[in-house]
């Protein structure tokens, strides 16, 4: 008896993704939707999309979603969660959104231990605006505002926001994963599940940083972009559990 073992998850609408070929966003959308379904929280989840390529996330997720100004996802999610503490509230943000313009809001939400979950998509570049440098752009990496490659003296080094958030006492679970290979995609799904469970158990702030390919702005074919994450990006942003306070008092 043949049975279907893989299909589009329930909490994604019929809309066709606008993302570029090989982009990690839609993989991550799918994983979040699968986790929402498996944890049975579709009727109590509220998502906050960013400004960035995923600004149209509400066209895809079939859940309540409220747009935040660029960078403010953690503050908007805080407002929602404080009013509706029994709902599951997550913010979905790119690297510029969370680690440049939104740094203060993110660090302070973590510091206060806001019981929200953040999905942080790190593709080392500002995608929607055409490929400018991001806080996580690697040294030497070319972008439209670092045509000669990111230079330490002019631009500073890439920022590891997740490490910064780990210092905040209110953060409970922080992990960095990737969606560049099926093995890492499975790992990402487990991490997202864990992060949502942290919120469901009322433990505190959780964040999953997901390395994601941006073939268009990295100017490489998708298969090469996926390899580049493995061979280059992970050297600066290694995959690991950065903080796990679950089970500790």
């Amino acid at each position, binding site marked *: 008896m043949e049975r279907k073992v893989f299909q589009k998850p329930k909490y994604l609408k019929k809309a066709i993704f606008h993302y570029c070929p090989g982009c990690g966003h839609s993989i991550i959308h799918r994983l979040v939707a699968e986790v929402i379904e498996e944890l049975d929280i579709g009727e109590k989840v509220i998502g906050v999309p960013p400004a960035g390529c995923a600004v149209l996330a509400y066209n895809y997720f079939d*859940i*309540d*979603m409220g747009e935040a*100004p660029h960078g403010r996802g953690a*503050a*908007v999610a805080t*407002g929602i969660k404080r*009013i*509706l503490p029994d709902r599951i509230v997550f913010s979905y943000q790119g690297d510029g959104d969370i680690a440049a313009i939104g740094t203060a809001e993110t660090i302070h939400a973590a510091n*206060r231990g806001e019981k929200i979950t953040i999905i942080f998509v790190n593709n080392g570049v500002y995608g929607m605006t055409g490929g400018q440098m991001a806080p996580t752009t690697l040294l030497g990496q070319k972008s439209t505002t670092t045509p000669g490659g990111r230079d330490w003296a002019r631009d500073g080094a890439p920022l590891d926001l997740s490490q910064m958030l780990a210092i905040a006492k209110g953060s409970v679970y922080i992990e960095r994963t990737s969606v560049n290979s099926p093995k890492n995609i499975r790992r990402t799904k487990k991490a997202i599940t864990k992060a949502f469970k942290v919120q469901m158990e009322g433990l505190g702030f959780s964040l999953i940083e997901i390395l994601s390919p941006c073939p268009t702005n990295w100017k490489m074919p998708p298969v090469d972009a996926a390899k580049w994450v493995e061979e280059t990006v992970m050297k600066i942003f290694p995959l690991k559990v950065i903080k796990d306070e679950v089970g500790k008092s």
Partner: protein
Amino acid sequence: MDKKVLMRGSHVIGEAAVRSGCRLYAGYPITPQNELGEYMSEAMASLKDGTFIQAESELAAINMVLGASMAGARALTSSSSPGISLKQEGISFMAAQELPAVIVNTMRGGPGLGNIAPSQGDYFQATRGGGHGDYRTIVLAPASGQELADLTRKAFEYADKYQTPVIILGDGMMGQMMEPVEFPDPIDLNELPPKPWVLDGAKGRPSRIIKSLLLDISMEEEHNWKLSRKYESIARKITSSETFMVSDASLVVIAYGTAARIAKGAIKKVRDIGLNVGLLRPITLFPFPKRALLEISRLVKNFLVFEMSTGQMLEDVKLALEGRSNVHFYGRPGGIISTPDEISKVINSLYHRQHLEEG
């Protein structure tokens, strides 16, 4: 509290907010309005469903209000001039997303860091949207402790009813002065009409989206006109002003807030020496009471706009009158508080100059 109490202006706003069903306050300390945040920190803690957040910035605070509003709560933030500048992005978003919110601006000297003394230098910021894009916010200008209470109640009602941010525009003096105030009874949140657009989890209903992005330019145009029509409708319903001794006046002073209190004192003085002067006090600054002004201008050909600024409401007066009357101006920016005596001298001198011109 069901009788008059003596209370500081900033506290009055807080107490009125709580009684109006405010259940989230987010703010950042800035003089001269810190008393409001401090009041709310206690008030929210005493409610089982109240939230107080001392946010990391005024910017974070307005965004927490945005989120709380999306979740259906009556939410409040407050600041003073430079902090209100930081909130403009959030206010623009909420106007576009048609979310309710109440924002209190206790104006101080500016621009820039300015000083902590009272001024009325943020009139343009408050009445012209203040942030980017084609929108306005309702602006209410209290001029007494009682009005602080009454207009705070109205602010929350208007915000919910018209799904738009409402600014309560006060100044440092309003925030600090103590007057007897009678508060209305606390409202029962359960009796408020439900909000059918709230994001509270799609249980038993389709999922909802609250957004302001409209890439399709026809849709954006349509949305802009929708907001514009909303503001016109608001103007027809809530425009409000107070007149004082205008029926036989040949010169009418136009002032709001603290300036209006000073002007009233000055007008009483000049009336004592036989000058026929009155006062028009706008209470809603947006929508501006054009009709009331035009009505007065049928018989009154001289107006004196008095503001604690270099002249901002002055422009709305001129726009409304469209050249029908003479508009004079007296302003003291920077935090100077004129005395009724000073203003009475200004009125006196202008009154006699007028009469000399009329021969």
